């Protein structure tokens, strides 16, 4: 599903691989730091990718409130499994953070005509 959304949004494979690899490292760091547990699960990275794509779902006229509510419900049911819950949450937050980072980077590209 994540790949399908990425394809429809035209993100490009390079950007997705970058997000996947960076989040695979940085999303597990808080888990290790706070819970002293190291986990390398693909699911945290998938959460990161989904978080990275989610703000752009607005272009499909999808209500972001509903999207985040579904994710919150999914996470709520994982709350007992504290390591996977923490990993997924970190992945999701990190994905949103990366989205903001890329947005700031993209802003530079949208100031061409005004610089001329």
């Amino acid at each position, binding site marked *: 599903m994540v790949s399908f959304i990425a394809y429809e949004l035209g993100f490009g494979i390079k950007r997705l691989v970058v997000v996947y690899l960076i989040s695979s490292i940085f999303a597990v760091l808080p888990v290790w730091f706070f819970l002293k547990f190291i986990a390398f699960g693909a699911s945290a990275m998938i959460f990161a990718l989904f978080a990275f794509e989610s703000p752009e779902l607005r272009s499909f006229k999808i209500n972001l409130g509903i999207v985040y509510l579904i994710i919150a419900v999914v996470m709520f049911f994982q709350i007992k499994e504290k390591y996977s819950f923490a990993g997924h949450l970190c992945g999701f937050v990190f994905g949103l953070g990366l989205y903001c980072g890329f947005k700031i980077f*993209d802003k*530079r*590209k*949208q100031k*061409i*005509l*005004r*610089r*001329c």
Partner: protein
Amino acid sequence: MKKVPTGIPGFDNLVFGGFPRGRNILLSGPCGSGKTIFGIQYLYNGVVQNREPGLYVTLEETKEKIYEDMFSLGFDLSRLEKSGMFCTIGGPIARVKYFMDKVNAGVKHIVKEIEEVVRKNNIKRVVVDSLNLLTILAKSDEERRKVMAMLCNSLSSFGCTSILISETEEGSMKLSRYGMEEFVVDGVVVLYLVRQGSRFIPGIAVRKMRGSDHDKEIRVYKIGHGGIVVYPNETMFGEV
């Protein structure tokens, strides 16, 4: 349907009151036919007569050069810009390309930037000068089509009534450079320069206007101080 008067003397008679609001109009013609003047006059009148903020996107000349040229025709664009109702973005295509390469940007970023300026300044009238140069920045025909559709959609979604300028080849009967622009837009206005002996007679015709009736003849126009004046009762050629 609500109309947006261009304020160009005589032209609004050809489109029965003005362009349909929120639509994209292609303005094509050969070099020297007055496309830029038409575009600027449309924006200038929008601010002065209708209090509608305007945006001029240039990919041909520097802002200073355009302001200087238009000042000689009686359009004080600097004063208009200071009022906050008018802005110009862009510059010569080589400069635009230089900055694009510097930050590895694509033509879709240019469209996004136009969209951002429109949104921030609550722009209601836009002129893109020219569509040929904008689409030159695209790497393929597919991207060209996508960019045109993207530009038209986003301008319409903001409620802008826009003029997209396209330069046609001298003596050509084509309405646009690539032959696809006229299908993306809602209206087409063509400027002609017809050679008669040793001089060129300028003519203007409305070829297409979705959602509105329009004049079907080629009418004569003149360019002088104060810009373009269209003579809605004078046809270019008599009855055959």
